[in-house]
């Protein structure tokens, strides 16, 4: 018995939107459009998180990605005077790329279907995870990687500055 729940409806809609925009991201003629499609995709992913009951992650997704990362991209695009126009956006091997992409998709879908058949998948209520739970986990068992990541971010920050800044010498 599989009755489609409300969340599932919502998810399917989100997923469809997200998927379409995802494809759009990698096919758009215009870089800025691509960036905007990316926003939509990421947002839909965030919504998916919420639907899956991962509130904290959902908001983080929306805030960090939509709020920060995409902005970074836009800056990048501007700084590099990204050209507008189809022919220059794709390289000569896009058909090959398409082929590979489809291959990957097909393969994955097959594997997934093989592992978790849709028909006998049950849709039970996922648990509501609260921010505390996440936080607790991070600061007990995952504190070490947490620190490590902070160093990674620090390094990225410093390095990015070093590399991207114009220095007088050269």
């Amino acid at each position, binding site marked *: 018995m599989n009755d489609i729940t409300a969340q599932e409806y919502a998810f399917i809609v989100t997923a469809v939107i997200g998927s379409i925009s995802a494809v759009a991201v990698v096919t758009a003629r215009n870089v800025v459009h691509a960036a905007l499609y990316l926003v939509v995709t990421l947002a839909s992913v965030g919504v998916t998180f919420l639907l899956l009951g991962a509130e904290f992650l959902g908001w983080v997704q929306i805030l960090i990605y939509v709020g920060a990362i995409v902005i970074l991209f836009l800056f990048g695009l501007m700084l590099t005077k990204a050209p507008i126009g189809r022919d220059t956006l794709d390289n000569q091997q896009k058909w090959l790329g398409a082929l590979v992409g489809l291959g990957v998709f097909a*393969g994955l879908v097959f*594997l*997934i*279907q*093989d*592992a*978790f*058949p849709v028909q006998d998948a049950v849709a039970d209520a996922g648990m509501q995870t609260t921010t505390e739970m996440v936080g*607790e986990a991070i600061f*007990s*068992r*995952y*504190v*070490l*990687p947490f*620190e*490590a*990541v902070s*160093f*990674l971010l*620090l*390094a*990225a920050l*410093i*390095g*990015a500055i*070093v*590399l991207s800044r114009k*220095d007088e*010498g*050269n």
Partner: protein
Amino acid sequence: MPQSIDYHAILPELILAGTILLVLIADAFLPARRRWFAMPLSLVGVIATLVATLTLLGDDRSTFDGHFVVDNFALTFKLFFLAAAVIVLALSLRYIREGGFYQGEFYFLLLVSFLGCMLMPSSRDLLMLFIALELVSGPGFLMAAFRKADVRSNEAGLKFFLIGVLSAAVMLFGMSLIYGVTGGETGLNEIAAALAGLEGGELSLAYASILFVVVGFAFKVSAFPFQFWAPDTYEGAPVPVAAFLAVASKAAGFAGLLQLMFVAFIGQHEFWVPIFVFLSVGTMTLGNLVALQQTQVVRLLAYSGIAQAGYILLPFALVTDDAASNAIAFSAAIAYILIYGIMNLGAFAVVTAVSRRHPRANILDFAGLWRTAPVLAVGMTMFMVSLAGVPPTGGFWAKILIFRAAIERGGDLGIWLAVAMLVNSVVSIYYYFLVPRQMLFKDPERDERLRVPVLVTAVVGLAMVALLAIFVLPGPFADVADLSVFRSLAVGG
């Protein structure tokens, strides 16, 4: 769930982290001329870390629910990384100073990478392995592009970055699936347990995800067909960085791979052994054959490094149900990694010195080196001979040990792998002797002495002595490798 943390276990990492911050801060306050102080500072920090690590020798510790372990395996690698760090720092000093780089930042990034290396062999958890890997790579991307003015360097960075991130993504996808099929496990031992119970579709999905995960590390160790970035990056990056990538970062990759394969996925060996047969043979063959064509020493070393990676991958392909022979293979791999590190660092040290006169460091630029810089020439010859696996050098034992593992494994597979390796070794001799040939038999185009930084000379001498020592007394060395084998294998888990 919240439990007390064993701070002694993570002391080395803490000290290193402290050093990193210190370097960063100090750099901000150092006057331009004094920027290079960052190096001695880092050196001190690293040595402190070394000491701290030594204090851990002997007993096994584990913390964070056994997801962070300090055992012989971890310690061996940590000490190796720290030694490598010392050497890379030594190589960097002049190079970075005279190359007009951002010194403080450079050392900062370098140390962060090494922090990642330090974490790698202790991580018994997918997440931590992932983080450690990124921690090694991230700064690596940046350092590869560190010769800002040079387009080649930029390219090196970009290629390294793209391939790196890409393979990371694939790996992550694999990890996520594993997380799923194992019912939410990320600890390696738990995963092993969980995987044991799988069958049918979930199993095949697990297989696929194991493959994805392997990809991530295969990239790191530049195994065929994920090796493309290596030559380009080594060529473009600053030489010390290339040295770091070729030795430390590669070793870190292997450290991770060893843990994954021999702990988490050991149960599935009949699935992934064929993969490693393919990876190993493919890698060594491609590396050797393409190396024959190289004209630049760094690229030569890159391909030789690929070939060597192939040899190191061979023990993975030898895994069977027999714990004893697995243990032999395991220790062979470790031994090879360590020796490989010594000879490669030595070689890169020489290149660093030569590149001061010949930035591109073509093989031809080494002509008559034994007139202009005898020590380097002798050293380089030694390293090449060792890489070729010819006595009287440590490289000889390295090969013998792998060989022995293959034979002990027995069966057609063992024999054929041994033969494959043998054939490859023979082929490799040719190109390894291209360089000594230039250095010893050709005349330099100008016969003035090459000024060699003291530290570089020291490194070269050290490496030579080490290789000779290992050749003469491989016993203790082999013991170290044996000790580093996981308890789980040693007792036959």
